[in-house]
Each structure stands twice: as C-alpha cells, then as structure tokens.
C-alpha cells in the first residue's frame, strides 16, 4: 500500500480516501445492519419476553432458555438434527470425494460431462419439491418398495417415512441425494486446480490409487472440504423444508428438528419468546460446530 511507504505525507489524502471508501461500504453495511444485525438483536430481545407477537409482552428473563434446555421434546429435536449431520455431511462429502476422483480418472469427453451434469441435477431441484417427490417414492406402493419387491426383498418393504425406525434415516438420505451433487462438482473444480505434475510424481514413485488419493487429492482439496463441511452441517442443523414436506416431524417426534419446532412454536402457538430463544440456541449451536472447522482449515494452511 502506498500510504505505508510514505506515512507522513500521505496521511491526509489517505484519510480522505478512506472516508470515501467508507461511503462505498455504506449501502452494504446498512443492508447488513438492517437485515442481519438488527433482526438478530430483536431476536435476542424477544427471547427474554413472553410475547404472542401482537399483544402485550412480559419480561421473563432467561425463562425461555431454561425451557429450551429442560423440554425433552425440544432437546430430542436437537438430537435428531445431529443425526442428520451423518446424512447431510458425512455421506455427501465422502461420496463427493469418491465420485470426483472417479470422474477425474475418466477421459474428459461427453461421458464425463454427462455424469457431472446428472450428479449435479438434484442440486437445482428445490428441496421442497425433492421432499414431495421422495415421499411418493418412499410410500407403501412407491418406487423404493417396488424395487425391493422386484429383487425379492418383500420382507423389508415398509412405509419408510411412516415407520418409527426408518423415518429419520429415510429423510436424511434425501439430503444425501441432494447434497452429493454439489459436493462432487465443487470437488471436481478443486481437483482441476491441483497441479497435474504432483499426480505424475506420485505415480512415478509407484503409488496406487489409494496412495494418490490420500497424499495428493485430500490435502489438495482441504479448502473445499472445509467449505462443504461447513455448508452441509448448517444445512443439517437448520433443516426445515425436507422435513416439512415429507414427515412434518413424525411419526411421533422421530424426525422433529429444531427448524420445525421453532416454526410451530413461533407461528402456530404464537410463542415468539420461546421460538426466539430456541432460534438463538440453534444459532449458537451452529457456530459451535462450524467455527472449529474454519479454524482447522486455516491452521492446516500454515
């Protein structure tokens, strides 16, 4: 920067220039304050009140937070969200890594670009629509059970979304299906940035597919892995649309997640205070899960 080489003379003009600089930031900053920071502060404020969203409110301190941490149904919904991480994060990221490496090893051409496009397709379908389509396929007479019957597995056919044991994994797999495409495509672009000579070098050293995968591909994709893990964990913890269109949290409370609980408490029961408190808790939960990943990816860069 020019001002640091000539500190004294440049000061005034730099200050002026920085003043102008701030002007350019103002629109974005204003939008950020208005649409992110202000609602967040309002949310924190609401969480300290008993309020139905319209009428008079009553200050109740941390009572709403106590309720979040003592209500077994609300705690169970947080537990379900963590189970979803396995399906929204672990499966898509691993599958994405595997598929990206596989596609890379295919010669570039119509086949490889077709497989990329097909893998990415689920990503462009709205989650809500995917949820509806999958709930048909999971039904008693749906495609999944037809397929199982066709291969003689009649014994395990069931209404997947209506069964207490299978509903949560079934919903989770919809998430895996949607997110695998995103992971694969991002990993593919990541791999294309890895220097080809590195692959050549390990191969000359006699490395096989596994060795190549773990010494070159994985370290080379560190950034992408961190980004995708972050995005998908957030998607798992704050999931709403898939559950809303498939199971509504049922059967019983086996697929209840914080997003659905907050929506119901806030908009059906009109308990804005409790819904806000649960929302804040969810936000903190997401940050607690995601921040270490950011830190890890930064540390490993050094």
């Amino acid at each position, binding site marked *: *920067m020019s*001002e*640091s080489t000539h*500190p*004294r003379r*440049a*000061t005034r003009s*730099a*200050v002026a220039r*920085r003043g102008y600089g701030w002007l350019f930031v103002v629109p974005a*900053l204003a939008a950020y*304050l208005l649409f992110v*920071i*202000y609602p967040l*502060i*309002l949310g924190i*404020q*609401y969480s300290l*009140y*008993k*309020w*139905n*969203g*319209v*009428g*008079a*409110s*009553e*200050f109740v301190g941390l009572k709403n937070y106590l309720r979040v941490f003592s209500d077994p149904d609300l705690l169970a919904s947080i537990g379900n969200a963590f189970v979803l991480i396995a399906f929204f994060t672990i499966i898509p990221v691993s599958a994405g890594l595997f598929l990206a490496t596989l596609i890379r090893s295919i010669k570039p051409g119509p086949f490889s670009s077709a497989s990329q496009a097909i893998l990415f397709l689920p990503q462009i379908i709205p989650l809500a629509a995917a949820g509806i389509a999958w*709930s048909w396929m*999971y*039904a*008693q007479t749906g495609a999944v059970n037809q397929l199982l019957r066709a291969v003689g597995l009649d014994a395990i056919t*069931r*209404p*997947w*979304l*209506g*069964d*207490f044991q299978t509903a949560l994994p079934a919903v989770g797999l919809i998430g895996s299906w949607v997110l695998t495409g995103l992971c694969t495509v991002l990993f593919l672009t990541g791999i294309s940035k890895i220097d080809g000579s590195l692959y050549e070098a390990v191969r000359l050293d006699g490395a096989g597919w596994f060795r190549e995968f773990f010494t070159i591909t994985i370290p080379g994709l560190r950034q992408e892995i961190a980004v995708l893990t972050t995005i998908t964990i957030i998607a798992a913890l704050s999931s709403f649309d898939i559950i809303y269109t498939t*199971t*509504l*949290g*049922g*059967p*019983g*409370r086996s697929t*209840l997640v914080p997003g659905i609980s907050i929506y*119901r*408490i806030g*908009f*059906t*029961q*009109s*308990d*804005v205070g409790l819904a806000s408190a649960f929302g804040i808790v969810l936000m903190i939960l997401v940050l607690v899960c995601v921040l270490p990943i950011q830190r890890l990816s930064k540390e490993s860069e050094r």
Partner: protein
Amino acid sequence: MTSSRTRPVSGSQRPTVRRSVATVAMTAAAMLALAACAPGGSGPAATTDTEVSTTLTSEKVELTIADETGFPVTEKLADEFTKQHPNITFTINRDTFANLTANSPKLMASDDAPDLIRLPTIGDTVKDGLLANLDPYFDAYDWDTWSKSQLAPLRVSDDGVRGSGSLYQLGLGYSVTGIYMNTELAATAGIDAPPATFGELQDDFAKAKAAGLLPIMAGDKDGVVNFVVQAAMNQFADKGEFASWIFNEDGATYDTPGNVKGADLIKTWADAGYFPSDLNAIDYATFVSRFQGGEGVFAFNGNWAAAETQEKMGDDVAFFLVPPVEADGKHVAMGAANSFSVPAKSKHINEIVYFLNWIHTDDAARQIVVDVTGAAPGGDPAQAMPTVKPGSLIEDALEMSATVGADDGQIDFMSNATAGIYAGAIIPESQLLATGKTSGQDFVTAVQKFYEQELAG
C-alpha cells in the same frame, strides 16, 4: 470515527480500526434496541366506534375477505351478494390454511386489516382486542332464534374461555362428522346396514377384518385418524366435561375415564390390525382418495367430503352418525362452524355483518352454502332447508346435522382446544397410539401435559 482520524494510518492498523467501527456500530444498535420499550402493543386496542346499523349502505363499498385456499364458497357467496347489491364488491385474498392461521393475528393488527377473515382458532385474538364484538349485531338482527349450540363455540367470555360470553365469530356453514361406509365392500363382509350401536360398529370392524378387508381407512401423517380417536372418546366421555376442556375452562382436564376408555379402544383396534399398516405415511388427501378408490370399509370424515365422495363412489356409499353406546342413546358428533371473524380494525363492520347475516338468512345464499360445502347453513332452524338431491349424501349430512342438533350432541374438534395442540401433541401422540405403541392412558396424559404447558405460556 473521531479517534481513528487523529491516528497515523498504517496498513497493519486497518483491521483494528475496522473492528472497532463494527464494535461501536453493534453496541450502538444493541443499546438502541434495549433502550426501546418491550415488544408489542400495550393491551386491547380501542374498538372502532361504528354505529350499529342493519340497513345496507347505498354507497360504493369494497369489502376484503382473507380466506384459505380451496374454500370456494366465499367466492360464490360474494358473487351472489354483488348481484343482489351491486354497490358492494369484494376482494378475496387467499393463502394456504397453514400460512393464513400463522399470519392472521398480524394481518388483523395491521392498518389494512381485512373486513372478514377465516379464523379456525381464536387463541389470544380476543384478549389482544383484534376481533370485533358481534353482540350489538346479535341484538340488532335478532339472532336469538338461531341454534344456540352452533353459536356457543363462537363465543368467548371475559376470562378468555370459549363457549359463553360475547359472540366473536360466525360460520359459513356448520359442519358435522360421521362415518362413510363402502356399501359394496360391506356387503361382501356380511354387513348390510349401518350399525345402530357402538358395539355393533365394533362387530362390523371384526367382520370386515375376518373377510380379509381393511376395516377402517385412516391416515395420520397430518392427524386425520383423530376423527376416529375423538369419535370413540365422544361415546364414553361426559360431553360437557369434554367441551369445557376444549373451551379452556379453568381446571378442565383431558384425563377423564371416558377419554382414556376411548383412547384404549384405538390401541385395541390398532393391535387388531383395523387400520392401514402405513397409517403414519397417509395424509388427508391420500386417505380420502384411497377410501374413494375402494380401500377400507369405513372411513371417519365430515360432511365437507360428501359431494366429492358421492361423485367418485356413486350409490355404493352411505354416510351416518357414529352410533351411541345404547341403541336409544343420544348421538354425539364433532362439528364446528367454518368460522370467520370480523377484525376490530375493519372499516366496514356494518356492511360485512350485513353480509354475514344475509348468508344465514337469504335463501339463495343458504343454497350456495349447502351446494358448495355440504354443510348446514345455520341460522334459524325454523327456516326452510335448501333443496338437495333426494337420497344423496348431502341430504344425509343435513339430516345428521338436524339429529345432532335435536340431541344437543355437537362437540367441537379437540384439535381446536389450543393453537398448538394439534401439531404439538395430538398428532405425534396419536401416531404412537394408532400404531399400538402407547396406551390410552399415556396418550391422554401426554396431551394434557402439553395443554397445560401451552396455556401457561
């Protein structure tokens, strides 16, 4: 920021400056918010001081109605009204049932509140002063002749208890529930007439099961099976006690021997395989189409499905009230108004109430209500009923309404007890109960616990 202006600027210091600016901005915003007063209004808003009039204005007035999607009766009624009174026109805004109920308090509190709104649960709206009190119109129009049991659930007392007090709602049709029977399937199982007692009904379930048929078509993805649950409870519970619970009377409880007995029966039926095996994956639309498609001998549903069911199943279907335990006992059935309220902020209260009164008293309007919804038109029971096709399910439905009225047997849906109880407790718990995973007592206890928690806030 004054402090940063005096400092020499160097590259390394920029982040600090940026951070301090952000911190100051955030602290300022936080203080601003916390210094502001508590969220929300301060209590009931002043009600509009419109002078009550039962004569329709001759000025041009546009009335706004907020309604749910898939409820075409408002459109038809509005068209007919405009035909009779061309100076009154309507705008009807529609939103899905879930969205509308979630937004209705805010909609009514806003400055451009609609003149009439579909409001299934009253909740806090009366306490918050959002609804117009219709008592002055009750006197002015002399609604005293109308069915009292139909209007009772639309009243709210000063303590926020439904069932008595001032009138805050009216119905665009008053529904009744019962049992649809696929007569063709029933005949193959040796069932040739609707059961006269609750015991006979259970015998019929067993006969259907023995014949390899599905006795009860039901679904519970979105709670429809609770028509069956409450139908069973209604026959054993004390109706007054049950109603007081639905109306949130102080100290009322769901945990009564009658309710437990009814819930236990559901578990028994579930264990006997009377419900579909994929019950919890079936939503209302699927439930209806599967029954109409010939799956299941019996289905518990309301008059609103009568017209469509007739269309699909022709004459192979019967519709009747859930039979009482004793052959000469009184019938009890769920029923409710398709309830609409007038927001206190409406600028045309006289005109919209004139419209509501017209719906209950005008012959053309009553005919529309019956034709479109299959529900009873309400109003004065002495007034002639609209004409319906003889032998049709809608005719059955109107007769059922009359029987329930005569037996004083109408009870509100338990899902209307509080705003959150259906999604928060009744559905998840019935998903366990109707698959035999929980006992009747556990079901009742869990629902009561949620109820107390929600009412306590």
